């Protein structure tokens, strides 16, 4: 299973009611400590002087494993500007406001609350890129979607 298979898949509640589609897949990246004096360690980069390329200041974490946390379910497909509504960026007016409006009602479900990932009977079975259909377990939680 790939992340791309889950994206845009239809999501059903335990009773079979349509809840929306998967607009994104949330992951937790394990942040590991840089080896002492390693290239680009967080604190070292603070000292990168006036003559260092600016890009050396950009946020960049040494990471270990990437755990699947859950799925973001929205009322409609992601469209362009994937995920923009989940950040707290407010400018430039009016783009964030429009994107946020379009994605109102997006929520997070934990991966543990996904009961099944199965072939979608509504999709054309002959299409080889048929998206699966997801069903949530009884008692699933709708968590806030924000990244904050």
């Amino acid at each position: 299973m790939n992340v791309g298979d889950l994206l845009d898949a239809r999501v059903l509640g335990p009773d079979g009611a349509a809840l929306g589609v998967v607009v994104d897949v949330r992951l937790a990246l394990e942040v590991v400590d840089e080896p002492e004096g390693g290239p680009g360690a967080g604190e070292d980069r603070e000292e990168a002087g006036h003559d260092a390329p600016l890009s050396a200041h950009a946020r960049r974490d040494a990471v270990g494993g990437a755990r699947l946390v859950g799925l973001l379910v929205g009322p409609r497909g992601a469209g362009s500007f994937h995920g923009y509504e989940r950040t707290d960026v407010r400018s430039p007016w009016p783009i964030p406001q429009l994107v946020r409006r379009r994605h109102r009602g997006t929520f997070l479900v934990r991966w543990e609350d996904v009961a099944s990932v199965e072939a979608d009977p509504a999709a054309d079975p002959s299409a080889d890129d048929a998206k699966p259909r997801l069903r949530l377990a009884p008692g699933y939680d709708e968590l806030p979607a924000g990244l904050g």
Partner: protein
Amino acid sequence: MTSDARERIVDARLHLLGRQVLDADGEPVGAVDDLALAGPEGAGAEAGREAHIDAILVGPVLATRLFGGRVPDSRLPRIAWDDVGHVGTAVELTVPSDRLDAVWVERWVRDRLIARIPGGRHDPEAEE
């Protein structure tokens, strides 16, 4: 951003898909086209069961995400997630690209065409 300092919460589409992959020397390798999931101990990922990112897929997946269709999983050039060192505005690997299968087209164009044109290996920044 996260309350737990040991974890950074990201969304695949927002923070990973489409990002530039750089090798250990900072050379571009490709773009993140998809992420393969796996369960514990090499098993396949299953609904509701613990799962993690196993590999980055680069290359032809882009065509399938553009035009539809599927490439058999075994045919996709994949980079093990274990080879990922840093995640920032790009995904940085801890291995040099020469060891990756993902860059064979670049190698082919280089060896068959570009390197054969006189000056193809000339360093443009070198003083003459």
